[in-house]
């Protein structure tokens, strides 16, 4: 494994985009080892301004943990996260936003959920009204503005969560499987919102299990296996010709167990 790991990371760094965007965020040897268990292990990762990075990997590979480490929700055991050249701090977190797999809705109306997120960032008055209006319109929730957020459907809730995150005008948006439990129509609405956000220049980091979604929305792909980054590269290349055994097995729909000396395959049920 270590050789693969080394190679792919180098490979990732060695594939600069034709016009390399400035570096926005960097993980340097980031590890998370509660009680010594290496759940996230020595991750080096560059995130460039305006790119859309898709994080893939099997359940338990450490995708969500990595995202929380990058966002600053948990502190790494070792290594560091660098945001625009400086260590990640509170101010940096305010330039980021995150949408969780299960949207967290405050026990308030749709509009109050939006107002809250803006209020805690000190945005009030006409500016807040303008942004709330805009968010409602973008998420097509105008008619539901006064409704309690928690009685919305799953798709509506996720649209609200995404609109709430975008209303804060982040430079970078983290998305942790935002469409995992949504129907196709709701998924499409979310994807459209993400694309719109990206078109406005927002950098995207998104976890998904959906290869089609990765192809539709991803510029780059980072593939995690057992807490390690085993492969990064342009989305099309990684999806078509994965170089790591783990990514290849996963993308081909096989089980890949690295605790055996050699790659082991078995048919998926």
């Amino acid at each position, binding site marked *: 494994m270590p050789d693969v790991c080394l190679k792919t990371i180098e490979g990732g760094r060695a594939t600069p985009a034709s016009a390399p965007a400035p570096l926005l965020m960097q993980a340097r040897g980031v590890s998370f080892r509660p009680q010594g268990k290496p759940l996230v292990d020595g991750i080096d990762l560059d995130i460039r301004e305006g790119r859309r990075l898709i994080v893939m990997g099997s359940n338990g590979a450490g995708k969500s943990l990595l995202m929380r480490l990058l966002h600053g929700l948990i502190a790494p055991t070792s290594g560091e996260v660098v945001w625009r050249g400086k260590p990640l701090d509170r101010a940096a977190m305010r330039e980021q*936003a995150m949408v969780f797999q299960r949207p967290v809705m405050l026990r308030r109306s749709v509009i109050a959920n939006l107002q809250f997120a803006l209020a805690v960032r000190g945005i009030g008055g006409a500016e807040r009204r303008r942004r709330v209006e805009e968010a409602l319109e973008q998420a097509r929730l105008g008619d539901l503005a006064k409704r309690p957020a928690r009685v919305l459907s799953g798709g509506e809730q996720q649209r609200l969560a995404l609109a709430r995150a975008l209303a804060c005008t982040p430079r970078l948006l983290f998305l942790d499987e935002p469409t995992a439990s949504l129907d196709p129509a709701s998924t499409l609405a979310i994807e459209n919102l993400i694309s719109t956000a990206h078109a406005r220049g927002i950098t995207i980091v998104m976890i998904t299990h959906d290869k089609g979604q990765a192809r539709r929305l991803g510029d780059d792909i980072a593939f995690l296996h057992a807490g390690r980054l085993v492969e990064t590269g342009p989305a099309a290349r990684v999806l078509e010709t994965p170089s790591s055994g783990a990514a290849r097995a996963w993308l081909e729909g096989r089980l890949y167990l690295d605790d055996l000396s050699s790659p082991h395959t078995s048919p998926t049920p």
Partner: protein
Amino acid sequence: MQDFATTLGNAIGLILLGDADLIEIIALSLRVTLSAVVIACLIGLPLGALVGAFRFPGRAAVTVLLNALMGLPPVVVGLVVYLMLSAAGPLGPLRLLYTPTAMIIAQTILVTPIVAALTRQVIEDLHSEYAEQFASLGVGPLDRVAALLWDARYSLLTVALAGFGRAVAEVGAVIIVGGNINHVTRVMTTTIALETSKGNLELALALGVVLLAIAVIVNAAVMALRASAVRSAYA
């Protein structure tokens, strides 16, 4: 006991006819209890929210203490408050002994730990749901407590209700610090105690039914409010 129905009828009749003495007693009961509950909430809600929403050294000990204080014996609280407010005590110069204020103080001491301990539980549960989102949004400590209290408001109504139930039914503390003085500190529970000691069991029981009815009305009102909140998924 066969004329209990008659006595109860008479007691209800007295209320309906607006019997001045009985109305006075009920009004004082409500004033003392509601004041104590409101003050206990002003102290206990933020306190419980702080313990529920933040990790700090000694947090487990504070939680254990709050839970233990829920079981404070009213007579002990009454005695301590009496000793504080007695002319011979440190707060004697305030001259609060045998006043409704003394009763409010005693009940506040009884109710605050209940409100704080139950609030901690409610806020901790809600916080475990909100914590990541709050951290992601960069919600500061004060906003966090305020938002948790606001979002838990319907659950916290039930918490206040538990405090109300304890206070309104309490007799041991208020009879010591209030003195059960007619027209001054006589409330429902001390009247029931007095009538029982006079052997007027039917009247005491009828007053108990009136007390129960008040508790039922208050509970029903809060539960109706909460039911509408549940429909909005606010609770």
